[in-house]
C-alpha cells in the first residue's frame, strides 16, 4: 500500500521533472548560443551585403573566390527560377545556386541534399531567409538551433538588385554550450522535494507539482533569459506561457485523480492497449505533433521568417472581422456564411440524389442494375483534383462544354465566374457530381440489408408507398446514413480542391470558404502562417462543436425508432 503510493507519487513528479528538464535544456542552450553568436550575426550580415553589392557590380566570381579562402564560410548566390517556380505553393519555389564557392554546386537546386553536405542548414531554412530578405529588401540573418549531430549555424542572406536573387553566407557557428552538472543536481533535488511534499500533503501534491513546474520556469526565465535583453524577453514569454499551461494542466489532472487511475488502468487493460497502441502511436507522431505545432502557430505572428508571440491577437483579428465590413469577403462572418451555405446545399443534394438513385437501383426486377451502379460510381473513382480541373475547363465561357450545351438549347452563354450566384453554382455542380455516388452506395448497401418481408407485411397492413418510405425505409436507413451525413458535412466543409481549383474564390474572393481563405492567408497573402493557423483552429472548433451536437442528436433520437 505504502509502496504503491510512493510509486505513484514518483510517477507523477517524474513526469513533471522530465518536462522541466526538457524545457530548461532547450532554453539554456539556446540562450547561451544566442549571446555567443549575436556578434557574428552582424559580421555575417555585413558579409552578405558586401557579396550582394559586388555581385551586382559584376565582381561576383572574385568575391566568391575570396570568401572561399576563409575557413568554414560558405557563400552562394541564389536565384528563383521562374520556370520551375510553383505558383501555387509559394514556399516551395524552386531556387537554384547561381554561383557557389563550391563550383560543383553551380546551377544545382537549393533543395538537393548535395547542396547541404551536412554543413549547411536545411533548404527550408535557407528558403525562408531568402524570402524574408527579398521581401524587406535588407539582409536577413538567422541562427539555427543546435541539435544532436548538428551545430548551431549562422545564415545570412542579402537581396540583390531586382530582388529575384540573393546572396547567401553560411557561418559555421559555435559549438553548443554543455549543461552544467549543477543543473541536473537541482532538478533531481527538486523532484525529491516535490515527492516528499506529496507524501506529506497527499491531496495537495498535484497542485504542488504544478506550482513547482511554474516556479522553475519563472526562475529559468529570470536567471537565464532576462539578462539577455530583448532576445531573452521574446523567447521567454511563450516559454513561460507554455509552462503555465503545463502547470495548470498538472494541477487539474492531479486534483481529479486522473494520473493514478491512468496507470492503474494501463495494467488492467493491457490487451485492449496492445491492439490500440500501434495506431495510436502512428496518429500521435504524424497527426498530433503537427497538430500541436499548428495550434501553437495560431498564437504567433509570422513576419519575414521570424515569429513573435501575439497571444490571442490573431483570433481577435479574425473574430472582430478584421476591420472589414460584413459584406466584404475578407470578413470572417461573410466567409463563414458562404461556407455554411456551401455545406448545406451540397450535403442536401448528395443525400437527395444518392437516396433517390438508390431507391430506384434496389429494385430486384431492374435489368442492368449492375451496369448502372458501376457507371454511376465513376465520379467517386475520379480523383477530386482531376474532377475540379475538368469542370473548370467545362465552365470556360468561350470553349466550355456547359455553355455549348446551353447554346444547343438556344440559351445565351454564361460568364460563370463573374457573379457570386453562377460561380457558386459551378462549384456546387462540380461537388455534387463528385459526391453523390458515395451517398448512393451507402444508401444502396443499407437498403439491401433491409429484409423484403417487412415491406410485404406493411403492404398486407395497408401501408401506402409514402408511408412505407417514411415509416420503414428512412428509420431503417438511419444507422448507416447518419454517420455518412455527419462525415459528409465535415468533408464538404473542408472541401479544398473544388473551391480552390474551380472558382478560385472568384469573383473578388466571394466564393472562398473558410479553408481556402485560411490557405490564402498562409501562402498567397504574405505568408501569415499565424493568422492561417488561427483560422484552422476556428474551423476545427466549429466542426468539433458540430459533430458533438450531431452525435447528441443522433443518440437522443435513436430511441424514438426503437
Amino acid at each position, binding site marked *: 500500500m505504502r509502496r504503491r503510493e510512493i510509486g505513484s507519487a514518483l510517477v507523477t513528479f517524474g513526469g513533471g521533472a522530465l518536462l522541466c528538464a526538457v524545457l530548461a535544456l532547450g532554453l539554456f542552450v539556446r540562450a547561451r548560443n544566442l549571446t555567443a553568436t549575436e556578434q557574428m550575426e552582424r559580421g555575417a550580415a555585413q558579409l552578405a551585403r558586401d557579396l550582394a553589392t559586388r555581385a551586382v557590380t559584376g565582381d561576383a566570381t572574385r568575391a566568391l573566390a575570396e570568401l572561399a579562402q576563409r575557413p568554414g564560410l560558405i557563400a552562394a548566390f541564389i536565384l528563383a527560377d521562374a520556370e520551375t517556380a*510553383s*505558383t501555387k505553393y509559394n514556399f516551395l519555389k*524552386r531556387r537554384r545556386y547561381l554561383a557557389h564557392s563550391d563550383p560543383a554546386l553551380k546551377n544545382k*537546386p537549393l533543395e*538537393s541534399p548535395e547542396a547541404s553536405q551536412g554543413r549547411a542548414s536545411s533548404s527550408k531554412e535557407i528558403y525562408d531567409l531568402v524570402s524574408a530578405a527579398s521581401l524587406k529588401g535588407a539582409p536577413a540573418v538567422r541562427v539555427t538551433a543546435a541539435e544532436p549531430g548538428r551545430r548551431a549555424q549562422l545564415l545570412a542572406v542579402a537581396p540583390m538588385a531586382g530582388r529575384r536573387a540573393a546572396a547567401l553566407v553560411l557561418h559555421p557557428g559555435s559549438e553548443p554550450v554543455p549543461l552544467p552538472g549543477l543543473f541536473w543536481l537541482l532538478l533531481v533535488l527538486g523532484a525529491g522535494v516535490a515527492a516528499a511534499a506529496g507524501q506529506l500533503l497527499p491531496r495537495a501534491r498535484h497542485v504542488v507539482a504544478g506550482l513547482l513546474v511554474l516556479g522553475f520556469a519563472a526562475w529559468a526565465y529570470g536567471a537565464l533569459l532576462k539578462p539577455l535583453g530583448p532576445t531573452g524577453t521574446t523567447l521567454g514569454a511563450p516559454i513561460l506561457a507554455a509552462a503555465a499551461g503545463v502547470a495548470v494542466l498538472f494541477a487539474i489532472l492531479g486534483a481529479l485523480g486522473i494520473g493514478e487511475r*491512468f496507470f492503474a*488502468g494501463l495494467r488492467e*487493460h493491457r*490487451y*485492449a492497449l496492445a*491492439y*490500440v497502441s500501434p*495506431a*495510436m502511436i*502512428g*496518429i500521435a507522431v*504524424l*497527426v498530433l505533433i503537427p*497538430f500541436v505545432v*499548428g495550434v501553437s*502557430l495560431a498564437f504567433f505572428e509570422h513576419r519575414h521568417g521570424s515569429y513573435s508571440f501575439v497571444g490571442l491577437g490573431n483570433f481577435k483579428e479574425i473574430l472582430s472581422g478584421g476591420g472589414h465590413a460584413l459584406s466584404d469577403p475578407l470578413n470572417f462572418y461573410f466567409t463563414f456564411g458562404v461556407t455554411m451555405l456551401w455545406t448545406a446545399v451540397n450535403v442536401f443534394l448528395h443525400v437527395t440524389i444518392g437516396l433517390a*438513385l438508390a431507391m*430506384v437501383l434496389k*429494385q*430486384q426486377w431492374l*435489368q442492368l442494375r449492375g451496369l*448502372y451502379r458501376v457507371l454511376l*460510381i*465513376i465520379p467517386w*473513382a*475520379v*480523383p*477530386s*483534383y*482531376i474532377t475540379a*480541373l*475538368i469542370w473548370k*475547363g*467545362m465552365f470556360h465561357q468561350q*470553349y*466550355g*462544354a456547359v455553355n455549348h450545351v446551353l447554346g444547343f438549347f438556344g440559351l445565351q452563354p454564361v460568364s460563370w465566374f463573374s457573379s457570386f450566384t453562377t460561380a457558386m453554382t459551378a462549384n456546387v455542380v462540380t461537388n455534387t*457530381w463528385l459526391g453523390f455516388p458515395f451517398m448512393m*452506395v451507402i444508401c444502396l*448497401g*443499407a437498403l*439491401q*440489408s433491409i429484409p423484403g418481408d417487412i415491406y410485404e407485411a406493411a403492404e398486407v397492413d395497408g401501408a401506402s408507398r409514402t408511408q412505407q418510405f417514411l415509416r420503414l425505409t428512412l428509420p431503417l436507413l438511419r*444507422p448507416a446514413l447518419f*454517420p455518412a451525413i455527419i462525415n459528409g458535412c465535415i468533408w464538404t466543409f*473542408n472541401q479544398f*480542391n473544388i473551391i480552390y481549383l474551380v472558382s478560385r474564390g472568384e469573383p473578388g474572393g466571394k466564393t472562398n470558404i473558410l*479553408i481556402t481563405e*485560411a490557405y490564402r492567408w*498562409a501562402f498567397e497573402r504574405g505568408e501569415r*502562417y499565424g493568422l492561417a*493557423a488561427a483560422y484552422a483552429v476556428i*474551423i*476545427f472548433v466549429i466542426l468539433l462543436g458540430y*459533430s458533438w451536437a450531431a452525435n447528441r442528436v443522433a443518440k437522443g433520437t435513436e430511441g424514438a425508432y426503437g
Partner: protein
Amino acid sequence: MRRPTLAAKIITHAFLATFTIMTLFPVVLVLKKSLSAGQDFAVTLSPLPDHPTLAHYRAVVGHPLFLRQLFNSGVAAAGTTIVGVFLACTAAYAFSRFRFPGHRAGMMVFLAVQMFPATLLMIPLYVLLDRLGLLDNILGLILVYSTTAIPFCVWMLKGYFDTIPKELEEAARIDGASRFGIFFRIVLPLGRPAIAVTALFSFMTAWNEFIMASTFTSKERSYTLPVMLQHYVGEFTTEWGSFAAGAIIVSLPVMALFYALQKNLVAGLTAGGVKG
C-alpha cells in the same frame, strides 16, 4: 413483391439513362480529348474523337520518368493500404470489444483529427518529415497518407465489428481459443467485406492524393503520378490532350478496383448482415 408495369419500367430506365448520361458526360469528354489530336479544349457535342490518335498516351507513357513515377504511386498506395488496414483493424477491434479508459476519448481523437483541415497540417508535417529525412521519400508519403486513412478506417471497421455478434467470440473462448486467436480466426474472416472496403479506401486515398505529394517531393524522380499530371495544367497554357490522357491512366487502376470489389464495397458499408 409488386410486379412492375411496363410503363414503370420504361420510366425508370429513362430516368436512369438520362442521369447516367449526364454523369458520364465529363468522363466521355476527357476520354474523347485524350484520343483527339491537339492540346486545346475545343468542345463539340459529338462523343467521337476528332482526328483520332494515340499520340497523347504515347507522349505521357513515353516520358522518361513515367515508369519511375508509376512505381512511386504504386508503392505509396500499396504501403498505405497495408499499414493503414493493419493498424485500423487492431484499433477498431479494441474499440469495438474492450471498454478501457480513454475508449471514448480515443474514438473522439480519431474523429477529431479528421476535422482538422489536412491542408493546414502541411507546414508542420513538412518540417517533421524534413527532420526525419523523409522528404522526397516514398516512406514519408506512406506515413503521411496512413494517418489520413487510419481515422476513417477505424470508424468504419468499428461500426462493422460492432455488428458481429459477441456470442461467436464467447463460444470460441469456451472452446479454448486465445484472445489473439479469436481476433485472427473469427473477427478478421467475418470482417472481410468491411476490410476490403477499408483497403480500397486507403488505396484510393493514397493513389488520388496530390497536395501533400507535391509539397513533400521536389525532384521529378520522386513525384507521384498526380503531381506529374498537375504539371500539364499550367497557369496560362494547359496541355489538355496530355492532361486527359494522363487523367485516364491515373484513374484506371482505381476504377478497376471498383469493378473487382464492387460486391464487397456495398456489403462492407452495410451495417446489417450477421450472415458471415
